[in-house]
């Protein structure tokens, strides 16, 4: 046995023998490494393509044509004149408005602020908005706009002799601040944003305390018995239940069974009982709350578990009760991570569509939601609805809304990541 090893071996000879094998192994290593890089590149490319695909729809050329030519309007008040519309006298603008705008709208504008009291500039803007009414007749995607400019021009020349093309970003300040409309150029997402915000607030108000409470119970208080193990297993299972099933649950429980509560009827919060129903912000928020509850619990449990045992030992060793230990030490030490987990769960809720479709979101609202018993629509719902509209321009709007939603999600995630970094920094300091 020892003869095998006792003589010093000739390393050089062995090396030569093994060299070929090693070279091949090294090559295999590079090939696989290449595969790993490639896979990662593909994953990133998928993300980039996805985003580009959205951006492609959210920007691009539009062909615009006036409903009424400004010159025709000037002709109405100053026949023969060639004054540009926006240089007209206030009186002339008033005449144009009074003659060309429908009565109801005039009355509403006057009720808002009498037209005679408004500045010339404002009146000119109103004329352009309401009478000249430039309308988007056709829209092109960003890619086409960049590569096929001449074709687009040719199309406009042929089909819209009075029209012109302009570059339009479908996401803009007005888009964020205006309410819903059936005219793509006028449509904004203020109402769905408010809806999303209110729904998410309910979601957080419900799922955060309940989720953290459950996690605290399971990690710090629950004795290891069958009931608690069952609760734990049950939570893991719930986290895998498809969101559409939560929709069915929300429909049955919040919309139907708990209608008196979710419609606000028993709180006397609504004036009109005849059409009160459970398809409210409250129901939607609670449905999403149930949906992300298991995610929040599991994340919070992990956060709580990550609190070093030594911290609890310190507190207990000083004669602290369990709740004192948890409240003064465990919870503060795990709060950053709990919040990180919550943000991730909440971004999931923000993007959910299917359960809200089932619970019943509205397609058009005239007023922003102002109470939790109001009917609602949310950003993803609006995205989903807009893509179903006949006019192609609503698809551009949908892309714009997606970008807004993505920016919100991105900032939330970035917040979570920054928080995560801060935690690890704190840990390092702690060491």
């Amino acid at each position: 046995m020892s003869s095998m090893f006792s003589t010093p071996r000739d390393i050089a000879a062995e090396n030569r023998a093994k060299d070929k094998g090693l070279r091949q192994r090294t090559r295999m290593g590079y090939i696989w490494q290449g595969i790993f890089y490639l896979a990662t590149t593909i994953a990133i490319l998928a993300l980039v393509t996805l985003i580009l695909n959205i951006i492609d729809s959210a920007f691009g050329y539009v062909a615009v044509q006036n409903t009424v030519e400004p010159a025709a309007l000037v002709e109405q008040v100053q026949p023969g004149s060639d004054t540009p519309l926006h240089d007209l006298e206030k009186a002339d603008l008033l005449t144009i408005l009074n003659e060309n705008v429908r009565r109801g709208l005039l009355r509403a504008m006057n009720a808002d602020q009498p037209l005679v009291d408004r500045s010339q500039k404002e009146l000119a803007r109103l004329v352009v908005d309401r009478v000249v009414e430039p309308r988007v007749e056709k829209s092109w995607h960003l890619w086409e706009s960049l590569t096929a400019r001449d074709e687009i021009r040719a199309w406009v020349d042929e089909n819209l002799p009075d029209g012109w093309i302009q570059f339009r970003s479908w996401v803009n300040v007005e888009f964020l601040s205006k309410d819903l409309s059936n005219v793509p150029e006028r449509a904004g997402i203020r109402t769905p944003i408010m809806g999303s915000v209110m729904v998410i607030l309910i979601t957080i108000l419900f799922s955060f305390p309940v989720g953290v409470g459950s996690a605290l119970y399971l990690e710090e208080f629950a004795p290891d018995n069958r009931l608690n193990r069952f609760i734990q297993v049950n939570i893991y299972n719930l986290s895998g239940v498809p969101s559409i099933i939560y929709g069915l649950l929300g429909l049955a429980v919040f919309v139907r069974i708990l209608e008196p509560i979710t419609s606000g009827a028993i709180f006397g919060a609504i004036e009109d009982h005849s059409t009160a129903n459970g398809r409210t912000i409250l129901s939607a928020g609670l449905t999403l709350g149930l949906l992300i509850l298991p995610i929040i619990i599991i994340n919070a449990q992990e956060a709580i578990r990550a609190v070093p045992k030594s911290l609890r030992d310190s507190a207990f060793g000083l004669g602290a009760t369990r709740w004192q230990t948890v409240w003064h030490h465990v919870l503060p030490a795990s709060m950053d991570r709990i919040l990180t987990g919550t943000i991730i769960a909440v971004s999931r809720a923000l993007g959910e569509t299917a359960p809200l479709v089932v619970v019943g979101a509205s397609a058009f609202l005239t007023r922003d939601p102002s109470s939790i018993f109001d009917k609602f629509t949310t950003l993803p719902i609006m995205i989903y609805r807009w893509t179903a509209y006949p006019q192609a321009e609503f698809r551009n709007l949908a892309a714009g809304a997606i970008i807004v939603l993505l920016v919100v999600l991105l900032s939330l995630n970035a917040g979570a990541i920054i928080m995560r970094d801060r935690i690890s920094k704190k840990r390092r300091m702690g060491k």
Partner: protein
Amino acid sequence: EGQGETESAEESNPFAWVEEMGEGELPAVNPLLVQGDVATAGSSTVAPLAAVIIERYKEDGLTSQVTLDVIGSGAGFERFTVAGETDVSNASRAIKDSEVENAAEIGRTPIPFRVGTDALSVVVSQENDFVEDVTAEELALIFGGAETWNEVRSDWPNEPILRYVPGTDSGTFDFFVEMVYDEDPDTILSAENTQFSEDDNILVQGVSESPYAVAFFGYAYFVENQDILKILSVEGIEPSQEAVENANYDSIEKNVEAGGYPIARPLFIYSDAEIMRSKPQVAAYIAYFLNNVNDVIDQVGYFPADLSVAEANWLEAMEGAY
């Protein structure tokens, strides 16, 4: 001071919005003075029209809430007649007897307000170069029964028919089945290669992609997609204002006899007299709808209808209430 007084007087009068009432005429509506919310739900066909009206209503000064839920005519009636949770139900077909019975059980008597006409469009892709016109029998074969185009007409290609059909809960589906299949959905439901969707754009996308695809849906969706779709004439008649007006909606034969478009259909909103009287804002909404619908309907892609019956219904329901 005087201003405040009138305001409070207006506030106390739920019919303050009524104005310029001629004898036997629908009153004009001053949206600034309307109070109270209105819940509407139903047809996806009527929805674009209703949405435009509602938006206009708001522009004209409405401050309260009008909700519009787009769930299909059948589901809309469900909410209106069973749950009783809506004030107005949008529908792209007439209410069924069974639905009227349901409504009676919760003390409602649905009143129809005909607001427009839709021409149910049978469309193919622009790449399709073999179909231009279909007969009623061929239409029935195309959406059920035949598997390939040449089974419908022998000089058409021997290619499978790819069908895109509105969802089974839509008024559009119901109406089509009623007219073409005599209310028996079996054939169309069991046809091969059929896609159902409540989302009409899914149908548009689908049909535009293959020369052997065919679909039917509301005229508005055709109008918006004229550049990729081709509309077929049925029994030689194409949708037009005249053809649609001539139709009387009973059956394809009668329509054709009258020189009407064979599958034109009425668009309705439904409400109930009791609701309109106890909630004047509902009456206001409907009056506003009727007053304004013909200004906007062609912009949405439908055909205007004769509103006199609807107006009479309104006046009858509100008799003596204001």
